[in-house]
Structure formats: structure tokens, C-alpha cells
């Protein structure tokens, strides 16, 4: 075959292939646009529907009410904050410790294998199943009731696998040299881990913890299952008091509501006036989770730049 004859054929094939490439790339971009369009329309829809309440200061300082125009989210915001304090206080130390153990200490045996498989499986258990665990175990067997403590505990268990996996990944990315240098200076294992490995892995661990907590803030299912109330017209007792001993933990045993549950309650009502409140609460909730996720992404971005 002479080259002059082959060329037009080749040119056509290449052209056709390039066309397919353009089609494939457009499919990818189209899907991406679709996903982004969803995110944007969710936000726009929420803001537009919640507009009348969103800039009304009463909405943020009022308790829930039977009258939609008087109802507010103060008990939900306080409830979410307190529940998150409990969740963070339990899940971060426990998750980081478990991650450190699995990366730095765990011997290769059946027990380590069991723990690893178990963590992977826990990550896939639906959140509502954690709610059933809390209902059967914490609420009834341990008699903790439908309290902030129970909710904090169940969300901590839910976040645990995420934090463990993030900790492991962060620690795995720390080069071996760092440990060897520490050992070379005479540090023992715990000193090496405590003074060198964990600080070096801190941004990665922090990112994972923030993502896990952002997810926990938005979780409604497990908290509904333990029977969180939706009509809370009071605040839990304050943690700081004017008389000795100044610090009180009574709030742990207080009934509560949280943002996603307040939203769920309002959206389930037939009157459309309550849907306005639900939308406004949705904007606040979205703002909380997006801000936390944004922070996590930012930390990771800085970390990557730092490593280069």
C-alpha cells in the first residue's frame, strides 16, 4: 500500500477517534455539571424558600412553637453544639488511639485482622442501625435515657471508623526516616509516637476528625431512633455556674433536640408555613457542615503544598 493511499484513511480514523474523545469528555463534564447543579439548586432552593425567616433575628433566639412565625432554632443550635462536644470528646481520642495502635503497634496476627475487618465493616453499617444499638443498649439497658449523653455517644460510635481510617492514612504517610531518627536519638517507642509521629500526622488526623464531625452534625437517623424530642422549649442547665464547684455536668442528662431533627419535624408538618422554617434551618445546617468540610479541604490543601 502506498502512503498516499493510506493517509486519507488514517486521517479519517484519527478524526473519528478525536470526536469520540470529545464526546467522552463532554459526558464526564456533563455528569459533573449535573452534580454541581444539584448542589447549587439545593442551596438556592433552601435560601429562596427560607428567605423570610433567614434574616429575622427572632428565628435564632426563639424556641420551637406551634406558631410557625414565632418558632426558632435556639434549642436546636444549643443541642447540636453540646452533642458535638460529647461526640468529639469521645470519638477523637478513641479513634486516634485505635488508629495509632493499628499502624504502629499491631502485630500481624488473627486479632489485628479481626479488628481491621471489624473497622471496615462498621464503616458500612447504616447509621440507623447505630440508633437501634443506642435505643436497646444505652437508653434501656444502661438506663441513660433520651439525653445529650446518649446522643453524643451514638454519634461518637458512628464517627469512630472514619477517624480511625483517617488516622491510619495520616500515619502511614509519615516517612520511616522520622521514626528511625527518633530511635537513633535514644527515644523509646512511646516517645517516638507521642513526640514525632502523632505531631507530624496531626493535619491529616485533624482533617479526618473534622469531616467525621461534619457528618455527625447532619445525622438525624440515629438521634431520632433514641427518641430525641422535637419540642424543647428550654435550654439544658449551663455547664458553668456561679456557685462552687462552678462546673456542672447536669446538661449531659438533659433532654434535647438537634438541628437535623428540628428540620425533619418542620418538613413533616402539613402546613407550608413550617416548610419555610425548615428551609431556613436547612440553610443554617448546610452552612455548618459546608464550613467544616471546607475547613478540612483547606487544611489538606495546605498540607499537600507543605509536603511538596
Amino acid at each position: 500500500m502506498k502512503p498516499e493511499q493510506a493517509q486519507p484513511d488514517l486521517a479519517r480514523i484519527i478524526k473519528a477517534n478525536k470526536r469520540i474523545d470529545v464526546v467522552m469528555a463532554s459526558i464526564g463534564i456533563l455528569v459533573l455539571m449535573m452534580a454541581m447543579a444539584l448542589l447549587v439548586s439545593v442551596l438556592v432552593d433552601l435560601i429562596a424558600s427560607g428567605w423570610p425567616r433567614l434574616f429575622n433575628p427572632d428565628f435564632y433566639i426563639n424556641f420551637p412553637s406551634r406558631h410557625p412565625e414565632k418558632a426558632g432554632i435556639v434549642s436546636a443550635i444549643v443541642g447540636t453544639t453540646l452533642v458535638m462536644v460529647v461526640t468529639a470528646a469521645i470519638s477523637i481520642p478513641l479513634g486516634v488511639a485505635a488508629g495509632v495502635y493499628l499502624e504502629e503497634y499491631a502485630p500481624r496476627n488473627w486479632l489485628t485482622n479481626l479488628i481491621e475487618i471489624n473497622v471496615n465493616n462498621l464503616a458500612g453499617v447504616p447509621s440507623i442501625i447505630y440508633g437501634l444499638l443506642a435505643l436497646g443498649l444505652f437508653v434501656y439497658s444502661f438506663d441513660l435515657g433520651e439525653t445529650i449523653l446518649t446522643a453524643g455517644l451514638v454519634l461518637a460510635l458512628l464517627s469512630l471508623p472514619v477517624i480511625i481510617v483517617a488516622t491510619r492514612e495520616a500515619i502511614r504517610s509519615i516517612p520511616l526516616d522520622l521514626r528511625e531518627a527518633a530511635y537513633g536519638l535514644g527515644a523509646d517507642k512511646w516517645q517516638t509516637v507521642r513526640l514525632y509521629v502523632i505531631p507530624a500526622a496531626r493535619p491529616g488526623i485533624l482533617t479526618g476528625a473534622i469531616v467525621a464531625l461534619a457528618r455527625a452534625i447532619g445525622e438525624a437517623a440515629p438521634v431520632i431512633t433514641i427518641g430525641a424530642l422535637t419540642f424543647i422549649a428550654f435550654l439544658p442547665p449551663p455547664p458553668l455556674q456561679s456557685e462552687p464547684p462552678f462546673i456542672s455536668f447536669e446538661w449531659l442528662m438533659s433532654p434535647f433536640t438537634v438541628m437535623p431533627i428540628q428540620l425533619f419535624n418542620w418538613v413533616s408538618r402539613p402546613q407550608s408555613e413550617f416548610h419555610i422554617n425548615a428551609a431556613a434551618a436547612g440553610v443554617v445546617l448546610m452552612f455548618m457542615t459546608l464550613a467544616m468540610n471546607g475547613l478540612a479541604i483547606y487544611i489538606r490543601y495546605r498540607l499537600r503544598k507543605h509536603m511538596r
Partner: protein
Amino acid sequence: MYGGASERFLRRRAFWNRVAAYLLFVAAAASVLVTVGIVYVLVTESASFFEQVSLVDFLTDTQWTPVFENARFGVMTLVSATLTVAGIALAVAIPAGLGLAIYLSEYSGPRVRETVKPLLELLEGVPTVVYGFFALLFVTPLMQTFMPGLSGFNLLAPGLVMGIMILPYTASVSEDAMRAVPMGLREAGYALGYSRFRVATQVVVPAALSGITAAFILGMSRAVGETMVVAIAAGQNPNFGFDPTEGAATITAYIVQMAMGDLPHGTIAYQSVFAAGIVLFLITLFFNVIGFYLRRRFREVY
């Protein structure tokens, strides 16, 4: 050479070294307790349920009326709605997720990838109640304008929203699988004169197939266990059937509905929640085990 002071220091250091190792082990082992707790609660509570309801009725009856005078417990009623919603979600997430994964792994440059992945993570971070609100009060009315027969509560709208909701997850897991395919395989394809499209569809996708399958099976598991979207937008009537234009309660929606109603501890209705829970747990466990097995396999091959 060592004075008494440094000997004491070394002894104290060795002590803390041992204590730390022990405590870290306890933390890791605690995660196993969570699983034990879940299994314990589900099994004990549903054991008393199955003393009163036969397993055959539970699996073959097509009515689910736990609070009626003449209570019937056919869990397939809830399972049918659950699978319908999850099926719709996958019908969206499989083609879209695969398209996006191929684009990100084979076509886009690193720069696009670095921008897109955080955006997808943001999408994953949206609380599911918000998606439920959106499905009920935005997507359903929108679809009713060109599907007049659609009920206010239906399985279609939450299914579609859930499909886009699990898209970031399925896309990123399948993209990981595709990127794990060695460059050499692609280069071999190009050396044979394959186009980029043929390399993607006939070399990379088949090589990453177990990982891609894992992505969709794990996505299925998520869709089955997803709660708030269906609890808000799919309605709470247990209907046996697979009609996506009608509302029906899924397993998760049933659990939420009963939990909202302040159940008396120890009644059959209370126990039925745990019986439904154990079915949900087994379905998701089944998908997760297959998914993890497939995922591990593609990791081992390359």
C-alpha cells in the same frame, strides 16, 4: 555510668511505654465491642419478636401492619420499597458514576481532578435531611408538572436524589480502581494503535472491573441503608410492590416512623423495629462483604 536518677527515669519511661501500648490496644479492641453490641441488641430484641411471629410469615406475608388490631408482619413489604428506591438510585449512579470516573481517570488532567474531588466531597457532606427536604418539596413538584400521575409521596424522587447523592462515592471508588491499573497496560494498548476511547473501555475498565463492581455494590449498600431522604419523601405507608410513582415505606423509614411515636418498651411493635433492623443489617452486611472482597482483590492484583 548510670546514676540512680537516670535509672529511675529509664524505669519510669519503660513503665509508661508499656501502659501506652496497653491503652492503645484497648482503644482498638473497643471498636470490636461496638459490633458485638449491635449484634447483641438486634438478636436479643428480635428473638422475642420471632417467638410471636413465625419466620415463614415474616418472609412471605405481603402485609405489614404492626400497630393494627390484627397485626401482620410481612417484611417483604418494606424490602420491596427499599429495593425499588435503591434500584432507581443505582440506575442513576451507575452510568453517571462510571462516566465521571472514566473522565476523571482517563481524560482530565491532574488540575481538573484536584478541583473536582473537593467539590464532590462537598456534595457528599450535605446532610441527608436536606436532601429529603429537596426531594419532597422541589423534585416531586417539579416532576408532577410533567408526570401528573405522580403521588406527593413517591419512590421516584427520593430514588433520583439518592442516586446523585451516592454518585461522589461510587465515582471516587471506581476512579481509584481505574487509576490502580498499571500504566504499562494502557501503553500496550496505545502501541497497538488503540484510541483513547478503546484503551479506556477495552483495557482500563475490564482491568478495573472488580473495583468498579465493588464501588456499585458498596453504593447499593449505602442506598439501602439511607434513611432521611426516604423517611421524608417516600411516605410512610407500607405497600408491597415495585411501583415507583406511589409512596411506600422502606425499612429505614419504618424504623424512623415507629421511633417518632414513642414506643412502649417490650411491646411487639417495639420489637418489630429490631426485626426490621436485623433484616436491614443483614442486607447491608451482605453487600459490604462482597464489596470489600472485590475491592481487596483488585488491590492485590496490582
